[in-house]
């Protein structure tokens, strides 16, 4: 990233002075400097600060930011999918520790990623904030006076007229005002400028990036998410004891949870039932009853769909998963009901082959001795006629066309009394023995309503039916409004910055010694656009109402078009094309 030749060209080239002066502050771009400007530590510090806030470094930092974002998209990230990270680590045992050290599993909160964007924002602040004040100064000041030599400007027109110089200048002033230029008539010339909104847009855009960052920061300090699985008919109060899990942050902990109650009434799912995409999900809807705070009298009804969360209090309730919960009743040898309830089974594939366990901790065997019973198995919403030997039970379709429950039974010690937390979806078979039947593990395939008499007089299991369950994400995230405001301002600012032209126009009418008046117009735009030439031409044509061109000149021009470049600027024409080149960088290379 060099400082481009145009900079060097400019140093020591005094012929360009006029253009530079004219182009001064036509942009909010920062000044660039090549070396330390002071002496000693302060000088170096100032130099470093200048470097940090220079465009060159902004470019490098932007480039680094995009590079640094790449690894996070290719390597599994902790914040997104813990499970994938673990699998990946297990597969790449040699590099995993190195990656871990380099924080490659937490790219977006890593030291190096943060360093880049923090530097970028420091650079941004150091560059934009001073510019904002300077720009306010520019707005208060008059447009810069006309340079001595207007032919040096990138866009130029001239003609001779009989009209009085003062009249022409006044007319130009009026015309420019009418075009909503900020125009000023002084010393026999008009200086005018327009398009300040470009700079406003640019500043707004960059400043709004801070709002975006602020929104992000606020969200990461004061948000929290919890998870809750509800079977149809179940409800819960939003407290830490009733949530399945919860992740808080500095300013939103377990005691800050928004108080409300939600009950899942009904869950509807629909699936594609024909064609090549058979089994694809088509609709999920959760119908709930809920109330905010602790007053059940305020019960309301709500509907939650995938893209339509329900807002309750300061939290949003998102639908994120669903499945089936078979309802089972277990009777002991004496025929007493020892367990009844709907247990959520977890989907294993797209067709909702689901697995789950039922733990009956208080079960008396046929001798009345206390034991525990564990059932594990599959729920298939649409079961095949026969199971594949290799894959085991597999559902054919996610809808409940032919539901079947497949169960194995274990007796012994579930380990639930040990006091250790247990996974409710897994059976710890260490102290359990599988029940046998005819020398084979006992197994059954049940349709709704069917019952299974367990071997060895262990009683019976009845598959009563099934319900659906839905899992929800309960999310409290402030700062969205700040970020959204930042985003909207950013777009508005960008549009202003990219589509509005900031440009200056000067008009100077001077009485010629031999009689008549020379009218000169020049324009300087800060970005590459043909528009400024057209604007100047239109202005000139209008100005000719007050300053009609002398006939002899238009005669000259029409005689031979190809020559008019050297004619219309008369003596100065040769000069006009030579410095034109150097005039260009000043207009495009927006530096002071």
């Amino acid at each position: 990233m060099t400082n481009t030749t145009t900079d060097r060209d400019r140093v020591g080239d005094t012929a360009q002075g006029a253009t530079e002066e004219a182009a001064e502050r036509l942009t909010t771009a920062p000044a660039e400097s090549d070396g330390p400007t002071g002496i000693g530590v302060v000088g170096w510090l100032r130099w470093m600060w200048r470097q940090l806030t220079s465009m060159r470094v902004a470019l490098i930092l932007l480039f680094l930011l995009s590079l640094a974002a790449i690894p996070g998209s290719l390597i599994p990230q902790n914040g997104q999918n813990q499970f994938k990270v673990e699998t990946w680590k297990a597969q790449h045992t040699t590099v995993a520790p190195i990656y871990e050290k380099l924080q490659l599993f937490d790219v977006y909160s890593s030291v190096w990623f943060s360093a880049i964007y923090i530097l970028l924002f420091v650079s941004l602040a150091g560059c934009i904030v001073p510019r904002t004040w300077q720009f306010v100064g520019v707005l208060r000041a008059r447009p810069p006076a006309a340079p001595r030599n207007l032919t040096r400007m990138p866009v130029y027109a001239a003609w001779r007229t009989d009209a009085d110089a003062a009249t022409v200048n006044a007319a130009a002033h009026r015309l420019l005002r009418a075009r909503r230029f900020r125009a000023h008539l002084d010393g026999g010339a008009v200086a005018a400028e327009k398009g300040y909104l470009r700079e406003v847009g640019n500043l707004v855009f960059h400043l709004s990036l801070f709002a975006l960052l602020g929104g992000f920061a606020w969200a990461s300090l004061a948000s929290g998410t919890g998870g809750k699985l509800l079977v149809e008919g179940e409800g819960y109060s939003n407290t830490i004891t009733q949530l399945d899990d919860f992740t808080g942050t500095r300013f939103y902990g377990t005691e800050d949870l928004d108080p409300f109650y939600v009950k899942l009434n009904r869950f509807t799912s629909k699936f594609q039932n024909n064609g090549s995409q058979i089994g694809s999900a088509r609709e999920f809807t959760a119908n709930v009853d809920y109330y905010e705070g602790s007053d059940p009298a305020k019960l309301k009804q709500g509907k939650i769909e995938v893209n339509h969360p329900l807002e309750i209090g300061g939290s949003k309730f998102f639908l994120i998963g669903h499945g089936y919960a078979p309802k089972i009743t277990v009777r002991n040898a004496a025929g007493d009901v020892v367990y009844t309830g709907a247990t959520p089974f977890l989907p294993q594939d797209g067709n909702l082959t689901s697995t789950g366990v039922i733990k009956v901790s208080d079960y008396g065997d046929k001798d009345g001795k206390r034991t525990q019973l564990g059932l594990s198995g599959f729920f298939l919403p649409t079961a095949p006629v026969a199971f594949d030997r290799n894959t085991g039970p597999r559902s054919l379709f996610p809808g409940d066309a032919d539901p079947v429950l497949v169960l194995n039974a274990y007796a012994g010690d579930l380990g639930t009394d040990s006091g250790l937390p247990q996974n409710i979806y897994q059976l710890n078979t260490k102290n359990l023995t599988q029940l046998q039947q005819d020398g084979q593990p006992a197994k059954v395939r049940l349709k709704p309503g069917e019952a299974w008499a367990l071997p060895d007089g262990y009683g019976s299991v009845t598959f009563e039916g099934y319900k659906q369950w839905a899992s929800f994400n309960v999310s409290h995230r402030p700062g969205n409004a700040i970020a959204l405001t930042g985003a909207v301002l950013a777009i508005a600012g960008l549009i202003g910055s990219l589509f509005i032209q900031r440009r200056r126009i000067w008009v100077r009418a001077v009485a010629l010694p031999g009689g008549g008046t020379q009218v000169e117009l020049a324009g300087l735009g800060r970005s590459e656009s043909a528009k400024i030439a057209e604007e100047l031409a239109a202005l000139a044509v209008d100005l000719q109402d007050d300053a009609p061109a002398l006939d002899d000149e238009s005669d000259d021009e029409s005689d031979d078009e190809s020559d008019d470049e050297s004619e219309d600027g008369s003596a100065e024409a040769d000069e006009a094309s030579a410095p034109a080149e150097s005039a260009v960088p000043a207009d495009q290379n927006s530096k002071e």
Partner: protein
Amino acid sequence: MHLASSVDPQLADLSNKLIYSAMAVYLIAMFAYMFEWTFGAKGAVAVRSTEQAGLAGAVAAAEARAKGAKKVTVTVASAGGGTTTLTRTALAGEGATVVTSGRGDEDLDGPGAAGSSEKADLSGRIAVSLTVLAALLHAGGVLTRGLSVSRWPWGNMYEFSCAFALAMTLAFLGLMIAKKPVRWLGLPVTLAVLLTLGVAVSVLYTESEQLVPALHSYWLAIHVSTAIICGGAFYAAFITTLLYLGKDSFDKRMAAGLAKGPLGTSPSIWRRLPAASTLDKLSYRINALVFPLWTFTIIAGAIWAEAAWGKYWEWDPKETWSFITWVAYACYLHARATAGWKGRKAAYLALGAFACWLFNYYGVNIFVTGKHSYAGL
């Protein structure tokens, strides 16, 4: 209410047929553009006769003077160091007729693919007509696809690709309608459209079906539509950038006295293209025009993510690559707007940014799994 089987198979079938027909017509159009380029090479490359131009100017001026017109000639310093002029002539009085004519740019900008050959010009005209026909069939294909399932037709990569290719064609035809001299873009655009559609029908094809619930959102219409437009326009800017780089090396080679263009290409091809600075400016304009829309696309996506997943930004691979693309284009605009990094260096940044865009579309969808997986792929 999204019923599980509300697909109109006839319309879906019609859509496929229309897409295939569009591809066939694009192919013929592409050949016609090729003919234009080939025939154009045979006719001598015309640098517009200054004599003729002078004559036209003289006639206009004489006419103008007769009616007491006002006339101004503005001298414009151009980037290359030369000057061009712009002449505006207006009849005096209210409601004046205004004629503005540029001089100089045409001399730098080549005459277009057809050169001075009439046969080539005819080929070019036929090619454009064919492109219009293909675009109509293509639009019909996209429309019937949407109608067959009563939803926006961009629910998966196949549909997205078809819509995105259409956006590209429409961008090109839009420039033609705006009377911009961009017929030379016809060949690369039809080629790019054919490539995109080819990949769509062969690799990405998915039957017309209803959407998965994750896509049941009006943000689909907003976010994905703008993404499609951005894609089409970035693609067009990319082609222009490539041509700029080619033309620029060609100019350098000519200045160095070499006989052939870059990669051994014929000089006549490059002479017929617009000037390097014109190409450079065009690609900058397209990119700058699209950048705010791309910003909007990302923000709309974030809002949708907030509604769907509870967090507006999670560094999902698709989000990450959109961000990378955005920063890359911001880098390019910075370089252009402020650091004086014009020309080749900025062009390389633009190519890099487009590469990010392409990877975000094909690469991320195919190789990286995230939350953004489309139905069917």
